[in-house]
């Protein structure tokens, strides 16, 4: 939902970042307002996953230039846990397994960390169980998953549902979903996308990172951005995704080459 007067949640300006010695982001600009759904598309290696990790504060990535503001606050100064607590959520492409740590306990500690930040009271085990059982419905997840270790032995689809469950509990204002559709079959994709749609409100925003149109058939974006060589090359409406689907990414290369020519 595009409302020009909606408050800006995330403002990325000329963002540069590298991993080890390799520069990956080379000047990303992006403004996300409340109520909007954005999709960033692009080939492997275009920098889309790096963008998501940098926004969440992964220690392996170093920001070398530019700014990111979240509701006016300098996001880049904050630790990953602080970013999560104030409402920035990253749904992982490959959620890691954490043996021995109970999923239920993990979800409770995470939820309470976010609630404390919002000035809400901490939930004890019983109150939390009620909440989590309710939220499980968003992703049609079996309560049995709560008793297992975090993501341990989960199938690809179950891991992604667990990510959306976390999103449902943490109630973020900006949710960045990194290739949430990868590895999902049609049914799982429908459930995960349904969850994301249910969680969208006029007050929050979603940034989808994806290769494929099929996720965007299920979650309609307000904006589609095409990323290449560490920058957003083009921005359009949902029809841009359809164009990509039809023409492939080859024209992106041509545009890139033309751009390089102009610069030269």
């Amino acid at each position, binding site marked *: 939902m595009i409302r020009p007067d909606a408050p800006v949640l995330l403002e990325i300006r000329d963002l540069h970042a590298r991993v080890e010695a390799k520069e990956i982001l080379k000047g990303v600009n992006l403004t996300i307002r409340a109520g909007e759904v954005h999709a960033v598309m692009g080939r492997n290696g275009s920098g889309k996953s790096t963008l998501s990790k940098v926004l969440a504060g992964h220690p392996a990535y170093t920001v070398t230039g530019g700014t990111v503001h979240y509701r006016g606050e300098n996001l880049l100064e904050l630790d990953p846990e602080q970013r999560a607590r104030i409402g920035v959520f990253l749904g992982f492409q490959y959620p890691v397994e954490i043996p021995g740590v109970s999923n239920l306990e993990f979800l409770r500690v995470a939820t309470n960390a*976010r609630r404390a930040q919002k000035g809400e009271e901490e939930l004890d085990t019983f109150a939390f169980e009620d909440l989590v059982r309710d939220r499980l419905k968003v992703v049609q997840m079996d309560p049995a998953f709560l008793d297992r270790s975090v993501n341990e032995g989960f199938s690809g689809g179950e891991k992604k549902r667990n990510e959306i469950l976390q999103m449902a509990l943490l109630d973020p204002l900006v949710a960045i979903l990194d290739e949430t559709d990868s590895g999902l079959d049609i049914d799982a994709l429908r459930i995960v996308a349904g969850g994301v749609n249910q969680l969208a409100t006029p007050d929050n925003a979603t940034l989808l990172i994806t290769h494929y149109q099929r996720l965007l058939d299920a979650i309609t974006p307000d904006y589609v951005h095409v990323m290449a060589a560490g920058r957003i090359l083009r921005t359009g409406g949902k029809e841009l995704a359809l164009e990509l689907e039809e023409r492939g990414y080859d024209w992106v290369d041509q545009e890139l080459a033309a751009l390089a020519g102009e610069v030269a």
Partner: protein
Amino acid sequence: MSNAQAVGDLVSQPYKYGFVTDIETEKIAKGLSEDVVRLISSKKDEPSFLLDFRLRAYRQWLQMEEPDWARLGYPPIDYQDIIYYAAPKQQDKKASLDEVDPKLLETFDKLGIPLSEQKRLSNVAVDAVFDSVSIATTYKEKLAEHGVIFCSISEAVKEHPELIERYLGTVVPTQDNYFAALNSAVFSDGSFVFIPKGVECPMELSTYFRINSGDTGQFERTLIVAEEGASVSYLEGCTAPMFDTNQLHAAVVELVALDDASIKYSTVQNWYAGDENGVGGIYNFVTKRGQCRGDRSKISWTQVETGSSITWKYPSCVLQGADSVGEFYSVALTNNCQQADTGTKMIHVGPRSRSTIVSKGISAGRSANSYRGLVQIGPKAVGAKNYSQCDSMLIGDQAAANTYPYIRSQQPQAAVEHEASTCRISEDQLFYLQSRGIGFEEAVSMMVSGFCRDVFNQLPMEFAAEADKLLALKLEGSVG
């Protein structure tokens, strides 16, 4: 600073129990000789069978050599430079707690083990041992109503000499090993537990060992006997002040379980570990063994080893009875320059005897953590079964973890399974937890306690939370 370094730093936490109690102590002169053995025995006013036991052990010890097969390195111990007996003055056995030196009560208060009537732990009876002597035992009368004997071993020697004579040294003979022989010669105090036939001990029993003197060895001796159908759960805890010298702790624990009896023995060991450069700390050389003498008897060891500069300890089960069960659950955390060589022995003698071993080693800093275990199946142990699982977690890149499993089977119809794994807390796991709002320290401690969960679940409820806290404490500290 990299995350790996930061994780390493987390593990450094000042030792909370490092204070010294200023109390007048009666000590004998340094050194060990036959006269010293006789002196200890006479100070304790012991019957002749016990003096003979000590002298036999001493003479055997003289013939033995200190073992060097463990993966431990330390300078030679000068056995003549140790005091073998130290006791707080006013050590005449107190009739009631009111007569115990308030300084001692205060010390145990500070350690979180209140002994006084009003404050003591409900449903846990405590025997408090300070240097060489037991200073108080709570709930003795209540236990006596059930026929349960719980007292210091010195007291048991006086009150129940027949039981001591019948059982002492029958599980760990005097000549069993170098440190057991030494202990048998000079042991000072410890706990004695006797659960008569058919009695389920109505409360948790616990002994708290406190070393206070800087130049004294601690040699405690614990003996637990559960008669037919009896059961008991027992826990020991230990701390010591910070000294820049090393203190020797060589204990012996013997457990006897008759038909259908069950003994659960848990340890939370937090002796002073030395400083970050490995100066000071306790040398912990301990022999613990349980004998499942009766059919269908069960002995279960659970240990959480976080302290000591050196740990040499292999709580074992001799599974003599048919269908007897042995268990060993262990968490060993080493940091800085700590060295631990610990594990278990499961000796299957009886048919269909079963054993389970779950060992979790966590190594941080420059420490070395070894699991060493023996599973032996004798020719008569038809249908015996063992399952072993040994997991190691490395924190930082300078710590070492080793696993030495020995399996010997003389019984073709036995099943022995061994699983082992090594893991490291990965940056991606930490980031995952952090990206959900969980702070760095809490994330590390969640993963470590998750790693240890199978073992913590075995601890008596009252202590499971404490063990979790202790580990978290060891992992707490400033980040960055």
